[in-house]
């Protein structure tokens, strides 16, 4: 019997670790997606940002973020309090004594959680690409991963006021995606559009990404990683019901993404007369973001419908932001923000425990807090070291000014 409990603990821990590894892989996905959608002259820098932000997230979340998000004893339901470093893992004795309450390793939990923070931060890098200073961005990521993300994460997943209120966000359409997109929006508003993106008389000049296979690879990596993202968020797999739940989450996650691709592709074809690959990629991610708020209660058919609507929303959202002259090179704010909200609202269709009021409260709380905190942080960084490269550096490409190194030295005329 004890051995059974131990084996069960081992399986749940292993499942958690594998799901975590899949989510970690999403870091590569964001890096490839963004590197594919910027111009060649800004590629080294966006890669550097992605590698570094993941690393910073890991360090900051270990130092204090994890403890803030899941405090041993919270100060109150809004402010978790601060403490540092990770504690000990569960002992065998505790596990056996817990009667199944403690069913996975704390370290595995930390690993799973830390890759989530990185995901939230990755969303930002795409939106501010091609014009933001590298070190300004990295400074922001310290604050974001160490404080902003954990605080609002605590509100829901750490048992704070949003959780108490009945806000429903299974795997983080709000806590992770909306949060990241909101921080990105604050940055983009302060930063302004890339030079040459918007013309005098309302004209919009597309700036095509330099490497579509890379962007497509990034999308596939994210899709794969999302099975860990959503599947792991069930937190347990070791009995029939839980195993079925995880399986259903895999199916629904996949279905929503697939439907998102198709609807985005068809929408784009109707609007533009061509099959816009970049929209298909955004459609897949939109489907994934939308189903993240509740991948368990919908049937696969409903999951497909939620994903399909997300795919349509994202196309119009991308176009809409461009009309508003909010320049987001990879469409991150649309994919993770606008569609994140759609996902949170769509929970009400299938989860009887969710209420529209709670969902709206959650959305508003996350948005207002993250926007204010991020805006303030960006402002402070701006006043100290500045956030935008000079016009000449932007023309020449941030690869040269920030990293001193080209991404494709043999394939382009350098310094263009």
């Amino acid at each position, binding site marked *: 019997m004890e051995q059974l409990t131990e084996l069960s603990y081992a399986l749940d821990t292993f499942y958690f670790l594998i799901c975590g590894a899949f989510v970690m892989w999403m870091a590569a996905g964001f890096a490839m997606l963004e590197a594919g959608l910027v111009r060649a002259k800004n590629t080294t820098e966006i890669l550097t940002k992605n590698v570094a932000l993941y690393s910073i997230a890991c360090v900051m979340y270990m130092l204090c973020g994890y403890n803030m998000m899941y405090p041993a004893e919270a100060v109150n339901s809004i402010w978790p309090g601060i403490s540092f470093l990770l504690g000990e893992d569960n002992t065998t004795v505790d596990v056996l004594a817990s009667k199944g309450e403690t069913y996975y390793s704390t370290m595995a939990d930390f690993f799973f959680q830390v890759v989530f923070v990185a995901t939230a931060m990755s969303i930002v890098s795409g939106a501010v690409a091609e014009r933001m200073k590298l070190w300004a961005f990295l400074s922001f990521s310290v604050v974001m991963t160490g404080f902003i993300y954990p605080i609002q994460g605590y509100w829901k997943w750490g048992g704070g006021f949003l959780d108490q209120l009945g806000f429903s966000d299974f795997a983080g359409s709000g806590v992770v995606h909306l949060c990241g997109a909101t921080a990105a929006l604050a940055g983009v508003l302060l930063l302004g559009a890339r030079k040459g993106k918007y013309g005098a008389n309302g004209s*919009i000049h*597309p700036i*095509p990404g330099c490497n579509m296979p890379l962007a497509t690879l990034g999308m596939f990596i994210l899709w794969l990683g999302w099975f860990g993202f959503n599947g792991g968020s069930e937190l347990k797999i070791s009995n029939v019901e839980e195993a079925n739940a995880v399986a259903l989450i895999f199916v629904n996650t996949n279905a929503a993404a697939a439907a998102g691709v198709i609807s985005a592709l068809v929408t*784009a074809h109707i609007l*533009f007369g061509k099959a*816009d690959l970049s*929209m298909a990629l955004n459609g897949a991610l939109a489907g994934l973001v939308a189903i993240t708020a509740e991948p368990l209660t919908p049937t696969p058919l409903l999951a497909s419908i939620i994903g399909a609507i997300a795919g349509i929303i994202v196309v119009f959202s*991308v*176009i809409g932001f461009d009309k508003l002259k909010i320049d987001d090179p990879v*469409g991150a704010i649309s994919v993770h923000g606008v569609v994140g909200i759609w996902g949170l609202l769509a929970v009400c269709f299938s989860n009887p425990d969710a209420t529209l009021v709670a969902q709206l409260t959650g959305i508003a709380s996350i948005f207002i807090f993250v926007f204010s905190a991020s805006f303030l942080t960006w402002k402070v960084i701006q006043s100290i070291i500045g956030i935008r490269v000079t016009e000449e550096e932007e023309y020449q490409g941030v690869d040269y000014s920030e990293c001193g190194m080209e991404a494709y030295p043999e394939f382009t005329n350098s310094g263009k």
Partner: protein
Amino acid sequence: MKLITAVVKPFKLDDVREALSDIGIAGITVTEVKGFGRQKGHTELYRGAEYVVDFLPKAKIEAAVSDELLEQALEVITTAANTGKIGDGKIFVTNLEQVIRIRTGETGNEAI
């Protein structure tokens, strides 16, 4: 000696090259260029916004020829590169004062 510079549609490059070779002009230098002319480029799409790719890829062929071969060369290029559609390209002729073959140091017509 004359320098012939022909700007042609890229997919006609091989035809032109063969035509020149047939009349004894084996040496040419080719550059990928972007052409702007009457023929207009096309529009492309990216994330819902259109943009015009207003140049057209062309191949620029440079061939140094002796005065005697000039007329014939112009003729075969015109014929080989012709599709009758807009954008077929142009031929420019300038005077060449000197030609040197680097390997041997030969100059003038021998060097061509």
